[in-house]
């Protein structure tokens, strides 16, 4: 958008151009990202800038990123999905069950599941549909009965986990079919496949949000539901669809995470729910809906991934990780909020 503005102005002094770039929404965020990258590079004496470390960061940004895009849809539509982490855990373990059933080794799972034999493609399809089903469950309650999003998805989380644990008997699933590994461990020209999937999902999302009526409807439903309704848009279905998208992308993330380690474990994504919300918030997406960009959220994802990879390289324990994560998210969101305060003075 800024580029076209600059062209319309014709001759623009370079100083003005620079100040315009720096005032751009995402430039501050990009600057924060660069500072964080440099800080971690300094702390680890350059280890995080080594090729393998960068690839690790890209790998983890792949899974966090796909789930965050789902969260982005929900948040833009004025909701929030805190069931993402549990959906990923639950769906992951079900992906494990279906795939392990193929190998006939779903130890500890309910007997009927060990009897089913499924090819990998079909098993993955079922798990993705399960994710959509969880999202539709959230979305139906929220859009049709007006239950509060935070509480609805908070309540959905233990239901999904409980069912998954019941089916598997609480065991981890190993011995998965070998051709599942490509989605999590594969590389194309040295780039991790999960990251490529993330980029594809992000490009599609960019197109959908910015160049389709559906995208505009998502923004409108989150920004001003009453006016959107009066414009003749079916907000109920728009909101329903955002949760379905989130559920689908959570299931995709779950499948990729399983194939990364070839073990399905219910606790494989302890921080993921927080990370998706943090990435969206750091990216300047308003948690009250209707405002924010995909680019911002993607920068948020990179920031979170750089931080968690940096902490792994530094060999921080759980205490240090929790502390650093909490503080960095708070500071990043606070910077954004304070900067925005200058634009419009809110009374309360």
């Amino acid at each position: 958008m800024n580029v076209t503005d600059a062209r319309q102005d014709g001759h623009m002094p370079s100083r003005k151009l620079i100040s315009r770039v720096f005032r751009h929404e995402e430039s501050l965020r990009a600057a924060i990202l660069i500072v964080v990258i440099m800080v971690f590079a300094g702390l680890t004496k350059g280890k995080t800038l080594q090729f393998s470390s960068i690839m690790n960061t890209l790998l983890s940004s792949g899974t966090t990123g796909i789930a965050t895009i789902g969260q982005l849809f929900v948040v833009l539509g004025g909701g929030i999905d805190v069931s993402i982490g549990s959906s990923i855990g639950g769906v992951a373990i079900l992906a494990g069950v279906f795939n392990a059933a193929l190998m006939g080794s779903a130890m500890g799972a309910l007997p009927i599941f060990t009897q089913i034999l499924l090819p990998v493609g079909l098993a993955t399809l079922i798990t993705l549909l399960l994710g959509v089903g969880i999202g539709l469950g959230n979305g139906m309650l929220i859009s049709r009965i007006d239950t509060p999003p935070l509480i609805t998805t908070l309540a959905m989380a233990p239901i999904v986990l409980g069912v998954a644990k019941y089916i598997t008997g609480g065991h981890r699933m190993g011995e998965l079919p070998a051709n599942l590994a490509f989605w999590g461990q594969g590389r194309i020209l040295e780039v991790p496949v999960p990251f490529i999937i993330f980029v594809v999902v992000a490009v599609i999302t960019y197109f959908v949000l910015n160049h389709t009526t559906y995208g505009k409807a998502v923004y409108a439903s989150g920004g001003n539901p009453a006016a959107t309704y009066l414009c003749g848009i079916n907000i109920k279905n728009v909101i329903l669809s955002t949760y379905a998208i989130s559920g689908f992308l959570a299931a995709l993330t779950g499948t990729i995470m399983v194939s990364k380690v070839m073990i399905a474990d219910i606790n494989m994504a302890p921080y993921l729910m927080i990370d998706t919300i943090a990435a969206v918030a750091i990216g300047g997406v308003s948690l009250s809906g209707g405002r924010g960009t995909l680019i911002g959220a993607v920068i948020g994802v990179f920031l979170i991934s750089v931080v968690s990879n940096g902490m792994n390289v530094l060999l921080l324990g759980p205490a240090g990780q929790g502390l650093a994560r909490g503080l960095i998210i708070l500071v990043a969101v606070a910077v954004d909020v304070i900067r925005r305060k200058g634009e419009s003075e809110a009374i309360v």
Partner: protein
Amino acid sequence: MELKPSGLTFKDRVRRLLRNENSILVIVIIALFAMSSFVSGGKAVKLLNIQNILGQVSSRGIASIGQLFVMLAGGIDISVGGMAQLSMCTGALVMTGRFGPIALASGIGIMLVVGLAGGLLNGLLVSRLGIVPLIVTLCMWLITEALTLVVTGPEKKIGDLPPSLAFFNGYILGVPVLFIIFIAVAVTAYFVLNYTSYGRSVYATGGNPVSAFLCGLDVRNIKLTTYAISGFLAGLAGLAVTARSMSASGPLVGPLEFDTITALSIGGVSFAGGSGGVVGSVLGVIILGLIGNTMNLMKVSFPVQSAAKGAIILIAIVIYNLRQRKG
């Protein structure tokens, strides 16, 4: 409180009573209790089991009252569990220190102060910087849990607490001391919310912050105080947990944020702020405790229990929403 229905027939009175949500909750409690004593073959009615339930619900109940204040003012506090963990572990650490005769008092004091300080920090970030409550309290939850690990050290547990702490796990006339503390907190909250201008302004802030501001209410400070109250009561809940197990460690607290939200949603507290009450919340806490106790007596496994709790929240909010729509 209510107008005396002088010219009403008995039928009208019953109808009026049934329309009150709290009386429905009481009926649910009686039904649950009858069911649990039936499925357990009479075990549930034993005095020891009842005392056990009352003791168990106390820590959750105290924290729920704090959460109630925050929610009435339109916020949410996800950090109550972390706050309770951190305050109980720092307090317990002080109790084992070399304060001798005043070890217990100083430890309790530290628990409450840590909770209050954490709550104030939440409140400042929400009310002064204007960061969304969900983000602030999620981050504080991460931070407090991490600090708890630092405080408890490699053993992840603090034992050898002064024996006088056991007083809190005792009974007065057969009633658990912790339950008396819970009821005292609830009664105070009831008085504050219903009979003081502060209480009214909490409701006003949650119901419509803009008009509350235009009415001259100091909305920012009201929000701040609700988080401080929640933090303080989380510290007190931490004391309750410590007293029950005579040791302090993070996992003992359990998913307190989830439990308080479950209890309040059963009790009919609106998550949009501005509506709900202490009586409903207390009944919600007791119902949650009874459900947990019944499932324990029935030997229901843990994942099924937590799934059931999730389903209960969903059912409760659906019922309340449908009722509201009809009214």
